[in-house]
C-alpha cells in the first residue's frame, strides 16, 4: 500500500471508466425524477440468498456513462426511473465480503452514525458508549437503542440494523410507488426485510423552509457534463475527494479497503475504487416555528439601521425575510446575500452568476454573516490565512449534496402573511391555509391508500457523498456548522440546522444586531439566562446512517464471489 506513488494515480476522471461509477455522483435528477424513495433493508442472513437478491437488483442500477433514458428501474418491470444502492459495513459482511476486508474500511464507516453521536451533536448515551468500549473494535452490535430522536411515533427511524439502502427515483408519484413496492417485494422474496421507505415530496428544488436548494455543488476534475454544476470560483476539486481510488486534494490516494496482492482469487483488487461514502440523515424541520420566530423578530427589528444608508426593511414580512436570509446566507430565491446584500433582487440570478461569489470583500460578515449556514458550510476564500490557503483547506472538505424534501411544503410568503396577520394563530390552522397542495396526479388515490408520504411533518432527507466521511460530512457538521466557536464567533452554532439554544449575531454598523428567542419560555429557577433567551431549535435529526456506494466491479465481486 505504502508503495503506491500518488503521482502515478490520476486526480481527474479524464480517461476513467465511468461505467464503474454509480450515476448519482453526477446526477441528482432534480428535474427529471422529482419523486424518490429511500428504501432501507435488512438483507437475508443467508449469504447465498443475499447474493441472489443483489444479482436481481444489479441489473437495474444506473451507471454513469451507462445506458441512457431507456434504462428501467423496477425489477423486471416497465417503469422509468433510477435505482442506486449503498451498503453499511454490516451489510457488506452479510453479503459475504471477507471480514478482513470489511475491517479495512474507515473506522467511522464501521462505527456507524450512532456511535459518532458526540461528533454529530446527537444525544449521547454515555453508559452505552462505555459498554461499547470493549466491543468497539468489532464495531458491530445489533442491539438497537431506541432513543427519543429515533422514536417512530415522531417520524424517527432507527437504522442500526440496516444493511442496505436503495435510492429509487421516478417521474411520478405513482411510478415511485410502483418501484418502491416492487423492491420491497423483491427483498421479501429472498427473506430479507424492508425496514422503512423514506418517501420524498415532489422535489421543487426548495428545502421545506422555502429556500432554493441544490444551488452550490462542487465539480469534479474531468467530470463529464460539468456544465450541469453552476460555476463558482475554485469549485473544481480532485476526484479523490468524492471517489476512492483517485488522488485527492492532499495529493494523496486515500486508503481504500483492498485485497492483499497475494490473495489467490482477488489479489490486489480494490473494493473501494470508484466507490464513495454516502451519509443519510433524516432532518425534521419545524417550518412553522421557523417563520413564526422570524415573523416576530421581523416586527422587532423592522426599520433598524444596519449600515450607512441601509436599514432592515420596515415592512415586517420583508424584515423577516431579511433576517432569515442573514441566518441562511442566501435569500429564499437562492441569491447570495453577497450578490444581493439588502434585498433579494427582482429574480433569481442566472446559473452562471448565482454561485459565482466569494467572501473576500466581506471579511467581517456585514453582507453575509460569518455564522450563516451557507458561509459556514463552505467558507470559500475566508477560512483564515491567505486566500490561497483558505481555498486549499476548504477544498479538502467539500461534500456533494443529494437530499430531497419530505412531507408538507409551504410557501413562506403565505406563511408569513398568516403569521403576521394573526398573532395567536395555531400551527394547525396555519398549516391548513398555507401548505402548498402538490398538484394532484393520476394514481394519487392508489398511493394515498398505501400510506404515502407523511403529511404532518416536513423536513429534509439529507444525503451527501464524499470519499471520507470524517473529512466530509462529519467535518462540515462538527467543525463548521455546529461549532459554537466557528471562525471566532462566540457560542453561536449554525442557527438554521444546528442545535438551537444560542443567540445569533448579525454584523451591522455601528454595532451588530443579536437575535434572541422572541418567545422565551418562562425562567426556571436554575436556568441560565443565555439558555432561556437562546433561539429555538428548528431542525431535529430523526435518524440516519453511513453507507458505502460500491462500484460495478465491487457489486460483481459481491454477487459472483
Amino acid at each position: 500500500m505504502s508503495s503506491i506513488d500518488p503521482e502515478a494515480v490520476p486526480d481527474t476522471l479524464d480517461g476513467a471508466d465511468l461505467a464503474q461509477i454509480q450515476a448519482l455522483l453526477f446526477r441528482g435528477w432534480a428535474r427529471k425524477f422529482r419523486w424518490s424513495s429511500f428504501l432501507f433493508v435488512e438483507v437475508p442472513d443467508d449469504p447465498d440468498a443475499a447474493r441472489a437478491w443483489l444479482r436481481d437488483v444489479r441489473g437495474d442500477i444506473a451507471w454513469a456513462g451507462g445506458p441512457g433514458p431507456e434504462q428501467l428501474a423496477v425489477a423486471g418491470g416497465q417503469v422509468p426511473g433510477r435505482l442506486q444502492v449503498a451498503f453499511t459495513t454490516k451489510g457488506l459482511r452479510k453479503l459475504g465480503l471477507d471480514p478482513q476486508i470489511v475491517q479495512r474500511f474507515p473506522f467511522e464507516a464501521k462505527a456507524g452514525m450512532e456511535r459518532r453521536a458526540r461528533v454529530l451533536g446527537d444525544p449521547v448515551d454515555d453508559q452505552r458508549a462505555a459498554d461499547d468500549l470493549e466491543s468497539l473494535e468489532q464495531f458491530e452490535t445489533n442491539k438497537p437503542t431506541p432513543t427519543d430522536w429515533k422514536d417512530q411515533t415522531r417520524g424517527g427511524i432507527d437504522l442500526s440494523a440496516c444493511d442496505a439502502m436503495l435510492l429509487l427515483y421516478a417521474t411520478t408519484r405513482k411510478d415511485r410507488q410502483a418501484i418502491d413496492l416492487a423492491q420491497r417485494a423483491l427483498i421479501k422474496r429472498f427473506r430479507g426485510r424492508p425496514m422503512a421507505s423514506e418517501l420524498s415530496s415532489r422535489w421543487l428544488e426548495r428545502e421545506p423552509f422555502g429556500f432554493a436548494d441544490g444551488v452550490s455543488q462542487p465539480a469534479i476534475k474531468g467530470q463529464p457534463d460539468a456544465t450541469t454544476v453552476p460555476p463558482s470560483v475554485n469549485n473544481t476539486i480532485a476526484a479523490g475527494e468524492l471517489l476512492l481510488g483517485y488522488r485527492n486534494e492532499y495529493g494523496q490516494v486515500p486508503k481504500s479497503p483492498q485485497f492483499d496482492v497475494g490473495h489467490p482469487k482477488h489479489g490486489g483488487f480494490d473494493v473501494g475504487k470508484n466507490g464513495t461514502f454516502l451519509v443519510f440523515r433524516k432532518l425534521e424541520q419545524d417550518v412553522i416555528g421557523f417563520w413564526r420566530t422570524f415573523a416576530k423578530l421581523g416586527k422587532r427589528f423592522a426599520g433598524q439601521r444596519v449600515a450607512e444608508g441601509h436599514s432592515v426593511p420596515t415592512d415586517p414580512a420583508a424584515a423577516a425575510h431579511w433576517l432569515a436570509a442573514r441566518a441562511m446566507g442566501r435569500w429564499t430565491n437562492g441569491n447570495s446575500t453577497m450578490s444581493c446584500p439588502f434585498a433579494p433582487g427582482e429574480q433569481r440570478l442566472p446559473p452562471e452568476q448565482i454561485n459565482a461569489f466569494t467572501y473576500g470583500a466581506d471579511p467581517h460578515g456585514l453582507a453575509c454573516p460569518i455564522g450563516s449556514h451557507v458561509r459556514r458550510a463552505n467558507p470559500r476564500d475566508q477560512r483564515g490565512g491567505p486566500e490561497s490557503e483558505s481555498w486549499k483547506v476548504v477544498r479538502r472538505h467539500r461534500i456533494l449534496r443529494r437530499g430531497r424534501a419530505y412531507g408538507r411544503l409551504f410557501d413562506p410568503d403565505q406563511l408569513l402573511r398568516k403569521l403576521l396577520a394573526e398573532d395567536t394563530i395555531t400551527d394547525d390552522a396555519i398549516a391548513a391555509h398555507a401548505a402548498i397542495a402538490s398538484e394532484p396526479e393520476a394514481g394519487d388515490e392508489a398511493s394515498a391508500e398505501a400510506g404515502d408520504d407523511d403529511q404532518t411533518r416536513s423536513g429534509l432527507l439529507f444525503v451527501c457523498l464524499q470519499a471520507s466521511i470524517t473529512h466530509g460530512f462529519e467535518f462540515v457538521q462538527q467543525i463548521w456548522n455546529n461549532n459554537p466557536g466557528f471562525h471566532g464567533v462566540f457560542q453561536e452554532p449554525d442557527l438554521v440546522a444546528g442545535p438551537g439554544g444560542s443567540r445569533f449575531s448579525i454584523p451591522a454598523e455601528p454595532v451588530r444586531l443579536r437575535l434572541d428567542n422572541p418567545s422565551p419560555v418562562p425562567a426556571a429557577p436554575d436556568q441560565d439566562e443565555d439558555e432561556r433567551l437562546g433561539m429555538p431549535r428548528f431542525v431535529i435529526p430523526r435518524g440516519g446512517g453511513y453507507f458505502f456506494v460500491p462500484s460495478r466491479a465491487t457489486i460483481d465481486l459481491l454477487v459472483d464471489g
Partner: protein
Amino acid sequence: MFDPTRYASRALTIAAELVADDESVDRLRSVLQVIHDDLTGNNTSKQKQRPVVREGQAVRNDIFLPGLLADDTHFMRFVIVDDKLGPADNQLPLVLVWESNHDGDPDDYLRNVLARASQPDAVLDFDRVFGACIGYPAMASGDAWVEWMLEHSLRAEAFYSGYRGVPKTKVKAAGRVHEVIRTYLDEHRLSLTTRTPIEVHDEIRRHLESTPAGLEPGDLEPAVERGLGFTLRKWATLVLIGAAVLLLALPLLPLTLAWYAVLRRREASDKPDTSNRAVHGMPDLIAVEDRIVQNQLTHLVDIKPGYFRYFTQRVVLLAIDQLARIWFVHGELGGISSIHFARWVILHDRRDVESKRRRHRLIFFSNYDFSWDSYLGEFVDRAAGGLTAVWSNTVGYPRTKNLIHDGADDEETFKQWARDRQIASQVWWSGVRYSSVDNINNDIAVHRGAVRALEPEDLPRWLVRL
C-alpha cells in the same frame, strides 16, 4: 529590561518516576479516575472515596478540584506515562506527569498551590496523586515539597501559548467585560444606531465605568501589553541569530553539508510505520473527546536512536521555542490559531545502561480547540513543514525529505502515526471551557479598547469585535 508579560501563561512540567509496585500504581490509577469523573460530572466510579455533598451539587470525592487553582492556572493535566509501545526487553519505568499552564514564577506558583491546599476545606490533595512517586515528600513538609516539585520539573524544549503574556485573571476579566458590553448592546442598540462610532464607544466606556452588574473589582484594567522590554528582546534575538548566521555560516559550512548528507542518508534508510488501515479510531481516547470547546493531546514517541537525531531534534525545538517567544505571539503558530498551549518536553533516559539501549522520548502536550481531526488536519493543512521538522526525528514518522518535506503531507499516514502514539491523559482540566483561542484574543482586544480612547481609524475595527 523588565517585561511583565514574561511572567504570565507559562509552562510547568513535573515528572516523577513511580515506585515499581503494581498495587500502588493501580491505586493511583483509580484515584485519577475518580478525579476525572468528578471533573466531567460522570461520578459513576465504583470506588467512591470520601464522598462529599456540597449544597445541592453532585456528589464529589474529596481529592482534587483544579478549579481551586483557577486564578493562576489555565489548563492542567495528570498523565501516567507508560511504555506500551516500547520494546519488551527494554522497558522504561512509569512516570507521572503534571502539566500545568500557569502564571507567575514557578516557585511562587507552587507556594500559592501549597497555601491554597492547606486551607480548611480545600480539595487539592497532591499527596494522593504524587504519593505513588519515588521520594515524594508530603505537602505538609512545606518548603521541602516545593523544592521536590521544582527538582522534578522539566524544561520545555519549546513552548507556545495562544495568548502569551496574558494572566488568567485578565483572560477572565476580558471575558466579563465583553459579556457586559454584549448585554448593554442588546438593550440599547436602537438608541445607538443613530450615533457615530465615537459616540458609541464613549457610551460603552461610560457604561463600564458605572459599575454595571457582572464586573468584578479591577476588571477595568486590561492585560498589560508587550512593551519596550519585549521589543528589545525580540530585536536582540533576531540580531543575534542574524549575526551568528553571518559569522558562522562559512566556518560551519562543511559541517552543515556533512549534516545534510547524513540526514539524507538517514531519511532514506529510516523505517516509517506502514499500515493499510484507514485512520483508526482508538475507542478509549475518542470516548473522552469532544465534550467542551477544547480537547487535549498527550503524544509520546521515541527519538530516533543516536546523537545525530537527538542533536537535530534539539536544534529544531530551540528554533520553534524562539519563534514562539518573539514571532508567534499573536494567537497563531504557523497559521494555526486553535492552540491554547502546547509544549515539547524531552524525557531523558537517565538509566545507567549502555548508550545504545538508552531511549530518550519526546512528549508533546497540547490544549487545543475543536476536534482531534480538525486540529491534526490544521497541522497538515497549514504547518506540515514545521511539524515534519519536529517529528521526523522520531520513530515511525512517515518518510521525509530534507527534514521538512513530505512527512505530514501524507495526511492519513501522519494521523495514524499520531493516534498510535497518543497516550491517555487520566485527568485533564480546562479553565476556559467555553472560549476558543480566537474568542479569548478577541475578548482581550475588546477589553483593551474598551477602557481607553481609540483613534477614529481604529474604531470600526474595534466595533466589529463586539
